[in-house]
């Protein structure tokens, strides 16, 4: 760290200079020129020293907290007994405890016994995992699997899969843009922004019905330039919980096909939404059956409770096997300079669970239980709201929505009221995570929602 005002002759001298307290004015703007400061005691002497530009990063502004993950941070800081965390979508038991699936514990113990090594995976990830994940998604008997038409890369959960796909789109489809639903998961925009892929929104949520604006959705997809990438939530739309019906999916596929758009599915809740792996994959399979090329990002964070292990996959269904090989080779070229190769632990857990019929059966059962608990909580919340709210407002959207989240229809001010007055933590778009709600807390939540909805604007 040098300056024009004095020469750096030894590490000690420059260290003294560097640790000078700086009298800083202004709001974090980089200030050039000399500053006079008083050093800390060094060798029992206090010295005056001149220091120039104490940091090259002085001008770096403080970033705002993540709107979703920041909620949990705020929740942790709250000391109130009544507090409730309905922010991030992580499953909680009725006792509001995090949940590690029994089948996951079994798999990990099995892995301990096997004592496998920790060598680098290939760039595309664990082969057994890639096979299992594609079969789970498309069905093992699906022609696209049998014909070897799917390029699958193990990636860092849903986010990592989306980011790889986005990098691929940026490089090979530089003219294309991605259409994302309004609203969508908050991080989608960040992913495409950082990957430098332009995006625009298609209408999705209708606040009047607290349902799907289907006509708006179709119109916007229709109006987009041919060959756009359309980001679709495979099931359990985040944040609204509102999914198209099977008939609506057919119409969506029609317009996508007509416009030669590329369907791009984000599948973060397979098995978690309805309780059935196959049912929750039906939208994806519908598109694939039409012979379309499709991108699908997968995550095992929720359905196998493997949140922190970061396990997922990007799949690209291609027209022919040799196309899939080329696509896979280019995805690898994007993964290598990002993280070289993916982490083994979560991949082995998935491969073990899916590969053993008994464990696979147990998994399906635990998944049904998790999905079931959420459905029960929806019912109880609906019942509480209907009983307590005398205004006659129709709360049935809570029962129609599916998956971990519910879009309550609360606006930002109302959501703030939920937090400030009731110590209920949620994202500012009015989204609550039902996975973080217990039957015991439904009445309290109902009171809070009714208060926020009617008394706050």
């Amino acid at each position, binding site marked *: 760290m040098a300056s024009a005002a004095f020469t750096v002759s030894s590490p000690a001298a420059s260290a003294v200079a560097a640790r000078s307290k700086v009298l800083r004015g202004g709001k974090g703007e980089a200030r050039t020129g000399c500053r006079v400061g008083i050093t800390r005691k060094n060798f029992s002497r206090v010295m005056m020293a001149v220091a120039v530009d104490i940091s*090259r990063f002085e001008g*770096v502004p403080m970033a705002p907290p*993540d709107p979703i993950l920041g909620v949990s941070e705020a929740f942790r800081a709250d000391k109130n007994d009544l507090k409730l965390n309905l922010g991030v979508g992580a499953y909680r038991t009725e006792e509001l405890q995090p949940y590690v699936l029994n089948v996951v514990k079994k798999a990990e113990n099995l892995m301990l016994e096997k004592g496998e090594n920790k060598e680098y995976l290939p760039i595309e990830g664990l082969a057994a995992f890639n096979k299992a994940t594609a079969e789970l998604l498309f069905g093992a008997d699906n022609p696209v699997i049998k014909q070897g038409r799917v390029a699958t890369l193990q990636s860092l959960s849903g986010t990592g899969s989306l980011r790889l796909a986005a990098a691929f789109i940026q490089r090979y489809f530089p003219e294309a843009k991605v259409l994302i639903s309004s609203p969508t998961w908050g991080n989608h925009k960040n992913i495409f922004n950082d990957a430098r892929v332009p995006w625009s929104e298609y209408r999705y949520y209708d606040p009047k019905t607290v349902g799907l604006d289907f006509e708006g959705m179709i119109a916007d997809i229709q109006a987009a330039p041919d060959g756009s990438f359309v980001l679709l939530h495979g099931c359990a739309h985040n944040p609204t919980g509102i999914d198209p019906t099977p008939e609506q999916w057919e119409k969506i596929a029609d317009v996508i096909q007509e416009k030669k758009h590329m369907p791009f599915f984000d599948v973060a809740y397979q098995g978690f939404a309805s309780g059935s792996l196959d049912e929750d994959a039906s939208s994806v399979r519908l598109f694939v059956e039409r012979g379309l090329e499709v991108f699908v990002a997968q995550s095992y964070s929720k359905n196998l409770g493997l949140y922190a292990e970061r396990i997922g996959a990007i799949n690209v269904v291609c027209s022919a096997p040799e196309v899939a090989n080329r696509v896979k080779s280019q995805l690898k070229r994007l993964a290598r300079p990002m993280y070289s190769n993916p982490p083994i632990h979560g991949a082995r857990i998935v491969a073990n669970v899916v590969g053993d019929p008994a464990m696979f059966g147990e998994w399906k059962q635990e998944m049904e239980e998790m999905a079931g608990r959420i459905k029960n909580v929806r019912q109880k919340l609906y019942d509480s709201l209907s009983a307590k709210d005398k205004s006659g407002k129709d709360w049935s959207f809570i029962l129609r929505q599916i998956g971990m989240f519910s879009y309550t229809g609360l606006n930002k001010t109302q959501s703030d009221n939920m937090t400030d007055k009731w110590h209920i933590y949620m994202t500012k778009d009015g989204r609550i995570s039902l996975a973080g709600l217990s039957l015991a807390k439904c009445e309290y939540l109902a009171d809070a929602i009714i208060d926020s909805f009617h008394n706050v604007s």
Partner: protein
Amino acid sequence: MASSSVFAGLAQAPEDPILGVTVAYNKDPSPVKVNLGVGAYRTEEGKPLVLDVVRRAEQMLINNPSRVKEYLPITGLAEFNKLSAKLIFGTDSPAIQESRVATVQCLSGTGSLRVGGEFLARHYHERTIYIPQPTWGNHPKVFTLAGLTVRSYRYYDPATRGLDFQGLLEDLSSAPSGAIVLLHACAHNPTGVDPTLDQWEQIRQLMRSKSLLPFFDSAYQGFASGSLDKDAQSVRMFVADGGELLMAQSYAKNMGLYGERVGALSIVCGSADVAVRVESQLKLVIRPMYSNPPIHGASIVATILKDSDMFNEWTVELKGMADRIISMRQQLFDALKTRGTPGDWSHIIKQIGMFTFTGLNSDQVAFMRQEYHIYMTSDGRISMAGLSTRTIPHLSDAIHAAVTKLK
């Protein structure tokens, strides 16, 4: 079946040059084949190694009934971050005590370099990074995709098979003020040639006088010399002068955690206030890339580093690995001497770390693959960790043949 494809114009990408060596090796049916490609440690029996202390740590974690798999914070496991910073900078490091270090858990060395590069491309005024010639093959790709312009500085001198120190000083002197400079903390990959401490001091002074920003890549702490502190000296020298730097740390080799992808990026900043802001911006780089890092490997590292018995066990196993490699160097050197292989092979014992830059050219490398089933990268780099007392005779025969038959 879909008849046409939007990917019609897409070319097949070539296999990654380093990882592709193992792919080719795996395909080879020869019983005498030797894989000296990728830098993963092998035992004397030629097997991958999971450290005993790692197995123990893993057992403790998996048997712990209160362990959960909730998302880590974007910055990773806090305990892991603190311990990692202490490991590389020293427990008494003033930079740590003054809270001037922003540390984020990342996906091993690659992930740390990429996140650091992206941060610099967004927030640093100089977008050029100087990398040594040669360097790890993935470095230029990581930094280019991060948004930086890559230039190189002279490093390896083929004539001496050592450091081109004059060239290095000249090239760094002519770099624009403020440019970023990638430095291998120890055990330079691929050459195994490291500056001496005196040379490091000269590099430090030159860099500080030109405000060049150091970006250290530390993938072999403890693995090179066998001593964690010794292998961190270059880094600590720079931290001691109070200046700023970036540090990409990997536990792939020194804890044998390759596939778990454990590492950390630390940015030593001029003040605690800056460090807080820098950390907040690092989160904005990470969130749209993979949201938060994987927990398993980081928990293993934290478990070991915070327990003094386990830490000591680790240092013993680590030294064991380093010593075996040093022994391989000596044995290979002796074997070539015994065969009277033409040339000066002393660089084999002078170079340090996992790799030796043999000085073999690509024709000789291809010959050795073809005739002797020896697999290495085409730049003549061999991984000493892939050698054993048993395979050294075969390798030295191959080198001898290559050097005498081809020029």
